[in-house]
C-alpha cells in the first residue's frame, strides 16, 4: 500500500546528489521539494516519500524548499528524513513534522579504553548495562521523582540531571542547546503525559532504540577527531539512541487531537490528517510548542541519566573511575524536533520554525549557538546505523546553513517493513550469527531484534557519503559495533 497511486515526479537533477520536484508536480505546492540522494538511494526510496514531501510543500508559510535527506522513508504526515522551515508569522507548527518521539536523538561518549581491553569483558559489560539501562516494552527507570520534580525536569532538561548528581558540569556544553530548550511550560502538558513518563527517566524503550559499544573503525580527519577526543582506530566509544519515551509520545498524541479541531477553526486544509497543524502564533500552536519543549528537555534528561548509568557500569567492570577512563560526552543531538532558529532567507536573516523529523541539526562553525569548543570544528553530528553495520560521527558545515537550514540525515533509513523483516529473519538466529561476527547483543524481544536486522536498512555509508559529497556535513569517524542492547 505504501507506493499506491503516487506518480513518479519528473525530477530536475541539480547535481549528483540533489534532485528537485517542481511546484508543478502537485496542485497547492507553495515551494519546490528537494531530495538529497545518490542514484542508488533514489532507486531504493519508497514512492510515498515523494507524495509526503510534496504534501509538506503545500503547508502555509513554508520557506525555500521542503527538504528530504538521503535516509528518508515514508512516515506519517512528513516523511522520516524530512526538514521544513516555516515563517513564524504566516506559517504553522505541526506535530507530524516532529514525530511522536519528541527529541528522539543520539549521544556519543568516548573512553580511553581499547578494543583489546574491552573485548574480553564485552559479555559482562553488556549484561550489566542491560540491567542498569532498562529497555523494552513499558520499562521503568531507577529515578523516582514526584510530579513536581518532574516539572523541573521538563523545564531544565539535562541541567536538572547535573544538579542532581547524574553527570559532569562539562556535559552540558556538549549537548544541543546545552541540554535545555527554552519556552518549556509544564502547564501545557497533560496529567496523562506526566503519568506515562514519570517513571521512565533513564530507559531506552524499544523499536530502533539501542545502546551500543563500538570502536572507532576509520578516522577520516585525525586532527579534528582528536579535538573531539577520538584519537585511535581501536578506541572504544558508546552510542545511545532514544528519546522522550511515553511522556513525549503522549504530548504528541494530545496535541494532534487539538490540532485536528484547530485546523477547522483556522480553515487550514491538509492532504493527510497526520499533517494536522496550527498557525505557529495561535494559542494551539504556542501551547504545543511549549509542551514539545517540555518533552524535548525530558529526552535530554533521559539520555543524560542513561550516560550516568553507563559511566557507573564501566566503573564497576573496569575498576577505574569514569574520569580515569576519560568518559567524556562527544555530543548529544536531537533528530525529531522543531526549533525556533535564525536563518538567511533571500539574503536576510530571519527567525524560522525549523521542523526536523528524522533529521539532525548540523550547524557549521559560524553559529554562536554552539559552545566555543565547536566554533572551529562545527557541530558534531551522530548518525546511527543498524546494529550490524556501524555508525558515523560527522561535522556540521556552514554550507548546510545556506542549503538545508543547517540540517542533515539521522541514520540509515529503513527499506524493509517490520513485518517483512520478521518473516525473513529469526531474532534468535541473528543474535547467534552476530555473536560469531564479534557483536554481542542482548535484547528483550527476539521479534524486535529481527525487525532491526541490518538487511532491513539502507547502506549507512551511502547515506553519509551523499551528505559529505553535498558538503552539508563532513565525515569524521566511522564506528563498528562490538556490543549492543536492544529493547
Amino acid at each position, binding site marked *: *500500500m505504501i507506493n499506491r497511486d503516487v506518480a513518479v515526479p519528473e525530477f530536475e537533477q541539480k547535481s549528483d546528489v540533489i534532485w528537485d520536484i517542481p511546484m508543478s508536480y502537485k496542485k497547492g505546492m507553495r515551494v519546490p521539494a528537494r531530495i538529497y540522494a545518490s542514484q542508488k538511494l533514489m532507486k531504493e526510496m519508497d514512492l510515498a516519500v515523494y507524495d509526503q514531501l510534496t504534501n509538506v510543500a503545500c503547508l502555509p508559510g513554508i520557506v525555500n524548499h521542503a527538504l528530504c535527506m538521503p535516509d528518508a522513508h515514508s512516515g506519517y504526515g512528513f516523511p522520516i528524513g524530512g526538514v521544513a522551515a516555516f515563517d513564524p508569522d504566516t506559517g504553522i507548527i505541526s506535530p507530524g513534522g516532529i514525530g511522536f518521539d519528541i527529541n528522539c536523538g543520539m549521544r556519543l561518549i568516548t573512553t580511553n579504553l581499547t578494543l583489546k581491553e574491552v573485548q574480553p569483558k564485552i559479555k559482562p559489560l553488556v549484561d550489566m548495562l542491560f540491567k542498569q539501562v532498562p529497555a523494552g516494552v513499558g*520499562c521503568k527507570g531507577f529515578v523516582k521523582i514526584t510530579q513536581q520534580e518532574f516539572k523541573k525536569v521538563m523545564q531544565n532538561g539535562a541541567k536538572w540531571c547535573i544538579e542532581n548528581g547524574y553527570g559532569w558540569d562539562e556535559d552540558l556544553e556538549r549537548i544541543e542547546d546545552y541540554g535545555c530548550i527554552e519556552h518549556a511550560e509544564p502547564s501545557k502538558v497533560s496529567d496523562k503525559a506526566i503519568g506515562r513518563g514519570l517513571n521512565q527517566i533513564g530507559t531506552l524503550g524499544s523499536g530502533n532504540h539501542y545502546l551500543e559499544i563500538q570502536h572507532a573503525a576509520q578516522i577520516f580527519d585525525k586532527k579534528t577527531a582528536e579535538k573531539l577526543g577520538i584519537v585511535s582506530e581501536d578506541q572504544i566509544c558508546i552510542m545511545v539512541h532514544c528519546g522522550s519515551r511515553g511522556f513525549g509520545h503522549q504530548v504528541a498524541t494530545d496535541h494532534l487531537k487539538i490540532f485536528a479541531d484547530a485546523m477547522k477553526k483556522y480553515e487550514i486544509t491538509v492532504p493527510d490528517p497526520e499533517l494536522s497543524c496550527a498557525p505557529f502564533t495561535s494559542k494551539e500552536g504556542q501551547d504545543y510548542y511549549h509542551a514539545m519543549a517540555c518533552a524535548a528537555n525530558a529526552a535530554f534528561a533521559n539520555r543524560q541519566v542513561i550516560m550516568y548509568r553507563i559511566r557507573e557500569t564501566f566503573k564497576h567492570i573496569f575498576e577505574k573511575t569514569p574520569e580515569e577512563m576519560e568518559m567524556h560526552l562527544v555530543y548529544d543531538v536531537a533528530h525529531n524536533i522543531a526549533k525556533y532558529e535564525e536563518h538567511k532567507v533571500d539574503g536576510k536573516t530571519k527567525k524560522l520554525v525549523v521542523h526536523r523529523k528524522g533529521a539532525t541539526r548540523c550547524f557549521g562553525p559560524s553559529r554562536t549557538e554552539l559552545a566555543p569548543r565547536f566554533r572551529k570544528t562545527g557541530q558534531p553530528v551522530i548518525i546511527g546505523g543498524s546494529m550490524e553495520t556501524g555508525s558515523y560521527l560527522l561535522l556540521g558545515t556552514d554550507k548546510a546553513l545556506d542549503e538545508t537550514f543547517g540540517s542533515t540525515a539521522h541514520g540509515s533509513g529503513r527499506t524493509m517493513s517490520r513485518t517483512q523483516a520478521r518473516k525473513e529473519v529469526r531474532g534468535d538466529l541473528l543474535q547467534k550469527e552476530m555473536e560469531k561476527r564479534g557483536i554481542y547483543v542482548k535484547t528483550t524481544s527476539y521479534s524486535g531484534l529481527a525487525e532491526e536486522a541490518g538487511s532491513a536498512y539502507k547502506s549507512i555509508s551511502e547515506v553519509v557519503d551523499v551528505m559529505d559529497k553535498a558538503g552539508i556535513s563532513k565525515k569524521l569517524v566511522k564506528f563498528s559495533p562490538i556490543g549492543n542492547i536492544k529493547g
Partner: protein
Amino acid sequence: MPFKFVEDIAIADVAFEATGKDLNELFQSAAQAVIESLANPKTVKAVIVKKIKKKEKTVDKLLFEFLEEIVYLKDKDAIVFTDVKVNVDEKKMEVTAMLTGDAIKPEEQELHQDVKAVTMHYYLVEKKKDKWKTVVVLDI
C-alpha cells in the same frame, strides 16, 4: 481472531486490519491486535485487571480513544495484557472493557514492541455489507 497485521502500510511501524460482525467484535479484535503488538498474550498471566470506559460522538473516535487508552495503561502501570472483554453500547456510543494482564516481566513474557501511539495514518473505520472493518497504524 479476526485481525491481521498488514505489511505495506507503514515501513517503520506496525499496521493491522481488524474486522467484526458488530462493534463488539470489531473493538475486541482491534484491542487484541494492540495487545499482541505489545507481547505474546499466551505468555502473560492474568493477575491484574484494568477497566476502560470511554464515550465519544462517533465510532471512529471511540475506537481511537479506546485503543489509545490501552497504550497509555501499558506505560502508566508498566503492564502487558493477556485478554480483553469488550462491550460497546452503540446507542450511547460508549465502550466498556475489562483487560487482564500482569506487570512487565521480561524474564517470563515474550515481549514484542513498545507501542508509542495510535496514529491517524490511513486510519479507517467502516461498515460494509453488515461487516465492520478498521485499519490502524501503531507508531513503534
